[in-house]
């Protein structure tokens, strides 16, 4: 038989009535609140009993205090003399209980209750909500901009952009709704109290909506990981899972630090400063360590294979064989030194594969270069948006070295494509093209010693179906 139970708290700080009713109902079922964590509330099994719960607020209370403040102690003393026993506190909320059904209520003046509650809300809940709203909007800014500007390419350019943008937008919506909900509740309650009534009950609406939004965020996160597996392989999904795990580890360690400092009787300001310092250091160490592992040791994304250095360039000992088009295909030459790289990105709706190959024949000094990117847009409007984006930027993120980059239309028939463009730099054509078939867009460039481009071969290898 379980003696303790943990529940995810869905009540908000100002829902005093909801908390009171919930705790009484739990006690009637044989579960008494033992500790109210930030999110998880711990209950211990007890004999089912009729117990009254009441909450009040102490603005000076804080989870960084080494113990109850003088004000809290004074409140506890007053409550004890009226037959109310302290259960625990949750931020500024002070939870009391009594088994005496005729005990004087904790609060007998609704106007004062509202005033005290608002003082407490201004202390932590409201500033925290505003900060979270600002951060959510900041993280969702790029996604929001794509939505507002109708830039479909930006919107679908990566799973991370699409999903994190949606998630942060949802979180921003939740925070904004929380702020609106509180001020609306306060306004209605002030009116009711002014007319001699009590604060209005909150009802389960807010809790249900916030729980539904959080569940949606969790579903989106799961969907995101699934799409990463589908489009980028399990390595990338594993990376994000580890990233998520590190985030929860960080939250856990930061909370433990604060709890330890409380135990050591550190003052509130010392606790805040040290907890914040630990938070920053751990965040840098964990995220930095993960990034270092990815770059240095190729964690999650696999090793690129063994390499060797020749003429100051790193070459592959066993070049990968899964390239749809290679320099050998184009020239028929045998290359002694080859370096091939593949980078997969994009999103489920717009997968992107970027291939690059550098190859050097035996005894030569000038290597051949081949680069191509394949996109497979899942619907025509996205393909149009992608083409517009590529034509706008000339395939690069803006003009480099004051040169003018532009894709100029050319005859698509030799390519067997729907449309074809050739890159011109400062008016002179280069060996770089942007080609489009239904459901496939290709950007290909040849460099180094290569001068001829066998269009039919390139089209056959890079066109749709490969």
């Amino acid at each position, binding site marked *: 038989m379980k003696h303790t139970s943990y529940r995810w708290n869905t009540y908000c700080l100002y829902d005093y009535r909801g908390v009171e009713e919930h705790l009484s109902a739990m006690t009637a079922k044989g579960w008494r609140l033992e500790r109210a964590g930030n999110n998880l509330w711990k209950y211990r099994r007890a004999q089912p009993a009729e117990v009254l719960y*009441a909450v*009040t607020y*102490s603005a000076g209370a804080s989870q960084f205090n080494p113990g109850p403040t*003088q*004000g809290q*102690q*004074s*409140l*506890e*003393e*007053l*409550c004890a*003399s*009226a037959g*109310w026993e302290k259960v625990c506190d949750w931020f500024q909320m002070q939870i009391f209980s009594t088994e005496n059904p005729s005990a*004087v*209520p*904790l*609060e*007998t*003046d609704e106007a*004062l*209750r509202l*005033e*005290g509650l608002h003082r407490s809300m201004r202390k932590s809940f409201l500033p925290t909500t505003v900060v979270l709203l600002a951060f959510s909007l900041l993280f969702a800014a790029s996604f929001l901009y794509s939505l507002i500007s109708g830039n479909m390419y930006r919107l679908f350019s990566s799973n991370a952009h699409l999903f994190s943008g949606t998630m942060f937008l949802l979180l921003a919506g939740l925070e904004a709704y929380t702020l609106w909900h509180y001020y609306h509740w306060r306004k209605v309650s002030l009116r009711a109290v002014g007319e001699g009534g009590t604060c209005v009950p909150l009802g389960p609406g807010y809790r249900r909506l916030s729980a539904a939004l959080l569940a949606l965020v969790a579903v989106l996160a799961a969907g995101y990981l699934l799409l990463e597996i589908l489009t980028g392989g399990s390595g990338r999904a594993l990376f994000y899972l580890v990233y998520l795990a590190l985030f929860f580890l960080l939250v856990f360690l930061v909370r433990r630090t604060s709890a330890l400092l409380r135990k050591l009787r550190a003052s509130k300001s010392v606790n805040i400063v040290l907890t914040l310092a630990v938070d920053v250091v751990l965040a840098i160490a964990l995220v930095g360590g993960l990034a270092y592992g990815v770059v240095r040791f190729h964690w999650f994304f696999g090793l690129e294979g063994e390499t060797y250095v020749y003429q100051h360039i790193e070459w592959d000992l066993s070049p990968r064989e899964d390239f749809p088009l290679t320099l050998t295909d184009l020239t028929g030459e045998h290359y002694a030194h080859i370096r091939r790289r593949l980078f997969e990105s994009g999103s489920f709706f717009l997968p992107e594969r970027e291939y690059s190959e550098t190859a050097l024949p035996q005894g030569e000094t000038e290597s051949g270069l081949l680069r191509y990117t394949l996109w497979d847009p899942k619907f025509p409007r996205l393909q149009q948006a992608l083409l517009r984006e590529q034509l706008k930027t000339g395939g690069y993120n803006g003009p480099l070295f004051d040169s003018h980059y532009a894709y100029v239309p050319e005859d698509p028939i030799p390519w067997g494509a729907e449309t074809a463009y050739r890159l011109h730099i400062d008016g002179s054509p280069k060996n770089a093209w942007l080609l489009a078939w239904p459901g496939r867009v290709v950007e290909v460039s040849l460099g180094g010693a290569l001068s001829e481009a066998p269009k039919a071969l390139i089209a056959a290898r890079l066109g749709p179906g490969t």
Partner: protein
Amino acid sequence: MAREKFQTLTEPMFYILLCLREECCGTDVMARVAALTHDRVTMGPGTLYNLLDSFQQAGMIRETCVAGRKRSYLITDKGRETLAAEYRRLLELTKDYKACMEEEDLR
């Protein structure tokens, strides 16, 4: 803001200030108010805690001693003035009531 807030006193405010003419702690205030009003005015501990805090911030009472979790208070001159002003206001109300009722009786 505090002056505006305590321009008129509610019954619990009035009785708290009245009780604190003599030094006493919060628990004693609750008992004294109940005794003085024959349980007509009941004050929850949360409400009393908030009021004592507000009075102290407004300079109408001051803390005199802290013994363990118990804190004792005493009314200040400002608190006495507020209490006296409330008393005068109540007298005005009573006077107006009487005048109106006497007028009605004469008619």
